[in-house]
C-alpha cells in the first residue's frame, strides 16, 4: 500500500491497523524518517518536499512488488509526506508485516533503501536565515540499494543503471554482482530445460516451473524443454540423460524433490547421471535461502555437470526456486564457458 500525502501519520495507528487486519502476522518492522535540524553546518528550520505525480506512485509500487516477490511478507505500507515540514516532523513511514521477523526486517530495509534511490521526491531545505538549498542525493544511498542486488548475486541491468546521470561526467558503476562487473548477465544462446519433480503437479499447474521459465527468458535464455515427473529415480535419470545427451540442452534446472522427505530423490538422481559436482553453487543457493528462511538449509540440492551440461537442483517452492536461481544466475555463463574449455576470463 502506497500513500503520498501532506497530512501527518501516526505510527501506532498504522501498526495497529495492519496487525488487526491479519492474524497471521507475527512481526512488524517499521521505519520512520524525520526532519533533521542540522545538515553539516546549516541549521534547518523547515523543508519542502515535491514529487512527480504519477511516476512517484508507480516507482513505489514497483519497489513494493519487488519486496513482496523477494520476501515472505504479509503487508507493506509506505506513507510519504510532501509539502512543507518542520524540524522533527515525520517525513516517511515504511512498515512491513510478516509471519516471521526476518522477512519483516529485510523487506522494511529493502523498501526504504530503494525509495531513497528511485522514488521521485526532491527535498529543499529552508534555513533559519531564510535561504533555501536543494538537497543532493545521499552518497551512501546508491551503495545501499546496490547491496541488495549484490546479495542476490545478480549483475543484470537494473533500473538503478538507468537512473544514472544522463549528463556529464561519467560515474562509477555500483551494483555489479560479486566477481563480475563487465556488463549485464546474459544467458543469450543458452538452451535450458526445466524439470519439475512432484508427485502431485501437472504441467498445467506447475507454478515454480512457470516462474523459472519467466526468469530464464528475462535472462535472455531459451527454454526448449519442460516436463513434470513424479519423484521416481529411473524416470528422472532417463530424462536428464536424454536432455543432456540427445536434446542439446546446455543447462537443466530441476525444481522440487530436494527436501528431507522420503520421496525426495532429485539430488540422488542427479548425482547418478552426473560426473562432476560444483558444491559451491549448491552452497551459494543454501546461503541465499538462509537470508529468507532458516529451513532453506534443509534443501539437499546439488549442482553438477553431465559432460558439458550443467544441472542445478532448485527448491520446489516458486519463491525458493526463483530466489535460488537469482543467487547463481550470473555465474552460469562463466561456468559453461569454462566447461567448454575456456579459461578464467
Amino acid at each position, binding site marked *: 500500500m502506497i500513500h503520498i500525502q501532506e497530512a501527518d501519520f501516526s505510527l501506532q495507528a498504522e501498526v495497529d491497523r495492519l496487525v488487526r487486519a491479519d492474524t497471521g502476522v507475527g512481526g512488524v518492522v517499521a521505519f520512520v*524518517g524525520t526532519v533533521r535540524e542540522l545538515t553539516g553546518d546549516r541549521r534547518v528550520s523547515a523543508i519542502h*518536499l*515535491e*514529487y*512527480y505525480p*504519477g*511516476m*512517484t506512485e*508507480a*516507482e513505489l509500487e514497483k519497489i513494493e512488488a519487488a519486496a513482496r516477490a523477494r520476501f515472505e511478507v504479509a503487508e507493506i505500507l509506505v506513507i*510519504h509526506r510532501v509539502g512543507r515540514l518542520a524540524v522533527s516532523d515525520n*517525513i*516517511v513511514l515504511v512498515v512491513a508485516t510478516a509471519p516471521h521477523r526476518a522477512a519483516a526486517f529485510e523487506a522494511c530495509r529493502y523498501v*526504504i533503501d530503494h*525509495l*531513497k*534511490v*528511485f*522514488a*521521485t*521526491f*526532491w*527535498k*529543499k531545505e529552508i534555513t533559519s536565515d531564510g535561504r533555501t538549498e*536543494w*538537497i*543532493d*542525493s*545521499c552518497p551512501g544511498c546508491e551503495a545501499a540499494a546496490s547491496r541488495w542486488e549484490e546479495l542476490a548475486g545478480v549483475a543484470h541491468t537494473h*533500473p538503478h*543503471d*538507468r*537512473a*544514472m*546521470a*544522463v*549528463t*556529464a561526467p561519467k*560515474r562509477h558503476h555500483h551494483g555489479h554482482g560479486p566477481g563480475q562487473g563487465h556488463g549485464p548477465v546474459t544467458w543469450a544462446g543458452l538452451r535450458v530445460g526445466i524439470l519439475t519433480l512432484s508427485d502431485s503437479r501437472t504441467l498445467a499447474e506447475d507454478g515454480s516451473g512457470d516462474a523459472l521459465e519467466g526468469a530464464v527468458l528475462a535472462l535472455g535464455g531459451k527454454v526448449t524443454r519442460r516436463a513434470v515427473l513424479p519423484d521416481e529415480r529411473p524416470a528422472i535419470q532417463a530424462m536428464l540423460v536424454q536432455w543432456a545427451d540427445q536434446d542439446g540442452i546446455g543447462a537443466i534446472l530441476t525444481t522440487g524433490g530436494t527436501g528431507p522427505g522420503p520421496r525426495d530423490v532429485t539430488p540422488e538422481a542427479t548425482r547418478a547421471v552426473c560426473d562432476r559436482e560444483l558444491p559451491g553453487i549448491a552452497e551459494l543457493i543454501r546461503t541465499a535461502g538462509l537470508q529468507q528462511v532458516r529451513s532453506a538449509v534443509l534443501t539437499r540440492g546439488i549442482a553438477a555437470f553431465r559432460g558439458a551440461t550443467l544441472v542445478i537442483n532448485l527448491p520446489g517452492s516458486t519463491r525458493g526456486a526463483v530466489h535460488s536461481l537469482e543467487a547463481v544466475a550470473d555465474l552460469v555463463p562463466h561456468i559453461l564457458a569454462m566447461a567448454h574449455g575456456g579459461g578464467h576470463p
Partner: protein
Amino acid sequence: MVRILYFAWVRERIGAGDESIPLPPEVTTVAGLLDHLRSRGAPHDQALTGGHLRVAVNQVHAAAMDPVADGDEIAIFPPVSGG
C-alpha cells in the same frame, strides 16, 4: 509534440514546470533531446548542464541512449532525495 516536465532546481532555473515542444526528426534519444533543449539558449543551456541530471520517459527512469518519440512525456530532474 513532446511534453517536458521539470522538477526541483531544474524547474527553478528554467522558470516553468513544464512545456510542450515539437520533436525535431533528428532527435531520437534522451541525450539528443537534452542537446536540442540546450541549443535553444537561455535559460535551458544553463539549467540543463552539469549537476548529474536524470531523465524519465513516460514515467520510467531512462538512460542517455533510450529513445524518445512523438507523444512522449519526458521529465528532467536532479538526483532524487526523498525518504
